[in-house]
């Protein structure tokens, strides 16, 4: 059986997100050969590579989309672009909002977004929470759906079109 892919994404943000990196590298599955990892770090310095997998700073959007499509679990910062992709591919996600108090962003807007996530497959880890221990069997048990859902709001798009061209 192929190894389940665990994708970690910290977005294109300029602020390093070391807390998220420390969460994942301290999880036993990071050094477990049964899993494959892809870790997109942005500006965070990664000092430990996973047993199987790759650590990259930034990757093209289409590569990210392909990784999301193939992943069994995603661990993500709480950026709106990431949320869009995870909804589109109906992924199981652990979101970790960036917070200003840890110098992970200039403000706490990711906490506001986190509060709007109401989806059974999506979990938010707040700064006061402990990062959950990853469970290999649970990760394998999840269906890896590959067909994207179109979540574009065409009502808004039509209004924007009218305003731009009308």
């Amino acid at each position: 059986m192929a190894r389940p892919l665990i994708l970690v994404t910290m977005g294109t943000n300029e602020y390093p997100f070391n807390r998220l990196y420390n969460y994942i590298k301290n999880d036993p599955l990071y050094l477990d050969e049964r899993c494959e990892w892809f870790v997109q770090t942005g500006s965070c310095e990664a000092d430990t590579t996973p047993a199987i997998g790759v650590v990259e700073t930034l990757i093209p959007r289409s590569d990210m989309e392909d990784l999301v499509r193939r992943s069994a679990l995603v661990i993500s910062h709480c950026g709106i672009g990431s949320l869009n992709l995870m909804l589109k591919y109906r992924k199981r996600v652990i979101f970790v909002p960036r917070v200003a108090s840890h110098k992970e962003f200039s403000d706490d807007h990711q906490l506001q977004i986190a509060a709007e996530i109401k989806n059974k497959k999506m979990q938010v880890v707040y700064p006061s929470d402990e990062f959950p221990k990853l469970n290999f069997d649970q990760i394998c048990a999840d269906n890896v759906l590959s067909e994207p859902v179109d979540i574009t709001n065409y009502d808004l798009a039509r209004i924007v079109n009218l305003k731009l061209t009308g």
Partner: protein
Amino acid sequence: MKRNPTVLVIASSGGHLTQAMCATSTVELELVLVTNKNMLEDSPFIRIHTIRDTQTNILIHAMNVFSAARILLKERPRAIFSTGGPICLPFALLARLSGTRFVYLDTLSRVTELSNSGKFIRKFRLSDSFLCQWQETAEKYGAEYHGQAFNLGDNGHQ
């Protein structure tokens, strides 16, 4: 040379760009993008310009005014659309000065107040249309609300 009319889309990479692509998905004119990091491979844009992003560096903002002027002179867009971030500010100023239609959609990621770029554009009335993606925040700032760029709901997630 006769050219097809275009819409200039200004959006920094990541979530701003995702929202801009959703919101302009039914625009019938050709789209030209201005962004800060080009991470796109195939895209709906016929051309892509990159400029430097900054939140607070005045020097980069000042340099971006010249970059924006150069891009606007080259592209001569029918209208400009932006979801932010701060790279849109020089375009907003020049759009107002040149009388080019400017439609601004404040980012979905600011739930309870406008983004800093949004506040600036609102304060100086730089946009022809100002849309906000959260109803209460739209009311608070006198912006238009027409829903969100993409559906945050459950989408048949099981």
